[in-house]
């Protein structure tokens, strides 16, 4: 996978990043431009999150230029409406729909965690690069791996504080990391696990961009 120039994150991903306790570091490790739509920013900012310690860095992240909040233009809005107004169960919530709509028109990668959102991406926008929160954490490990303990603590924090869901494809890797394995060792475990023989193979996971 080529360098990610533009990453558009859904509310779920943004919450996980904030839950890590080191959002600046994770966002910086992505290197490309990181955006969230106005709809996503509003969702994460509004009550009952307000006052929660882990969500306090949200505004500073924006002010510090780590995160850009974008408005949907006319073309994206049309796609957004087509996604939120699709016939159930193919409709999406405002946050995911706006993230996908923005990604479609700006040639970016979208970070979508939800099973339903990922299915709709696959079906309606097969060309759209779709990654998940764990991909961002893996990038962080690759690029900040020298401080492994700090990375591991960020991953643990996201899982414990924001209940970040670990998709099936990432279980082996996550468990290995949390158990203390080095990144290369964890990657090897993924490829060597019996799970890789099944249809949902880790080979199909996005490789970490160098």
């Amino acid at each position, binding site marked *: 996978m080529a360098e990610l120039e533009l990453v558009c994150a859904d*509310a*779920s991903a943004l*919450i996980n990043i904030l839950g890590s306790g080191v959002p600046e570091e994770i966002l910086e490790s992505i290197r490309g431009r990181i955006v969230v739509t106005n*709809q996503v920013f*509003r*969702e994460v900012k509004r009550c*009952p*999150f307000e006052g929660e310690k882990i969500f306090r860095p949200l505004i500073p992240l924006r002010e510090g230029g780590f995160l850009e909040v974008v408005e*949907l233009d*006319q073309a994206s*809005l*049309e796609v*957004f*409406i*087509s996604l*939120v*107004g*699709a*016939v*159930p*169960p193919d*409709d*999406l*919530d*405002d*946050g*995911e*729909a706006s993230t996908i709509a923005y990604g479609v028109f700006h040639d970016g990668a979208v970070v979508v*965690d*939800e*099973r*339903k*959102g*990922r*299915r709709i991406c696959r079906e309606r926008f097969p060309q759209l690069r779709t990654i*998940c929160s*764990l991909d961002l954490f893996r990038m962080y490990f690759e690029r900040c791996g020298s401080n492994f303990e700090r990375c591991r603590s960020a991953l643990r924090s996201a899982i414990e504080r*924001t*209940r*970040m*869901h670990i*998709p*099936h*494809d*990432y279980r082996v890797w996550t468990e290995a990391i949390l158990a203390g394995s080095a990144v290369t060792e964890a990657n090897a475990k993924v490829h060597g696990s019996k799970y890789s023989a099944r249809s*949902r193979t880790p080979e*199909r*996971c*996005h490789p970490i961009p160098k």
Partner: protein
Amino acid sequence: MSVLEKISSVELGSRLKMARNAVRVTQEEAAAAIGVGRTTIVAIENGERQVRPSELAKLAELYRVSVNSLLRETAVHFDLVPQFRRSLSAREDQGASLEAANTLQKLVALSVELERLLGRKWNAISFPEYRILRSGWQERAEDLAAEIRQRLGIGSGPIANIFVLVESGLGVRLFIQRLPSKISGVFAYHDEIGACILLNSVHPVERRSWTCAHEMAHFLTNRYAADITWTEKHNHNLEERFADRFAAAFLMPSSVLRLRYSEISEESGKFSPKDLVFLAYSFNVSVEAMGRRLEQLGLLPEGTYDSLVRRGFSVKVANELFGLQASAAGNFIPRLTWLALEAYQRGLLTGGQVADMLGLDRISVRSLAESLLASELDDEVH
């Protein structure tokens, strides 16, 4: 054809109007938010002009609803609020009344929508409506409570969990959500939807149980009059007094209560405040409700509870001294939550949609799904 062309302009206009009214935004304010004249808002709400995507996004933001909830094909939009006309006009505090009525309407609509999405049917149970007669209404309330208990097959013992009983035994749609603190509960009935009760989640479980039984009486005696129950007694007309007496009799049947009272009094030689607390706990009601019920049945002299309070009796302190825990009667997961989680589990709803529907944040939805669905949430990523 775009989504906005497909959806009926009249339907969407009506949904926008309901959403605007729910947050009490004027047509002028809405017009200013999207940079048009008031007449354009009128035309949009009447279905005479199609709303544009950018306008819809701005109006949804102003009305604090998601665009998804306005456009969702399965979304159910009906107006229960007019049924509350009597409550809304009778009290000064119309803001709280309107908030409660709107909350119930939203929850009922979501419940029906989820049932449709999942292909589930709500099993409404047919109960006749009973007339309240002015003469002998106390005895009638006692008799009706006994009759309903018999129909439900629950005997005359304490009710372990009235919420489950009301939902599954009476076929009432029951919701528990935060309401203005001065409101205990809300009741409404709709021919197509059935009976709906909303209880204030902020109130202690014993109070919620009482309110639930009180609202049951409205369902059984005057179901077409939507009702809001307040913490302070206002306009205590015959219907309200009947509902209170029914609640007392339903939660604390006289026959069993007299027997328990006699047993306790005989064993310890007298009936003390500790016995009152213990009895209240065993019936899952508040100490005050138990005290007043014993007075009502003539087992304690009238005014005993007030006198105890005046003399410094504190339920909180008594609970601490006895090491009593809050009763388990609050262990109730509303059907709406179950339905939403099932839709989430089946990939029919996203976490964001569930959060929007249940009024929760995403982390709470994740925690709920984690604990209630466990490993079944396993999914494919790529």
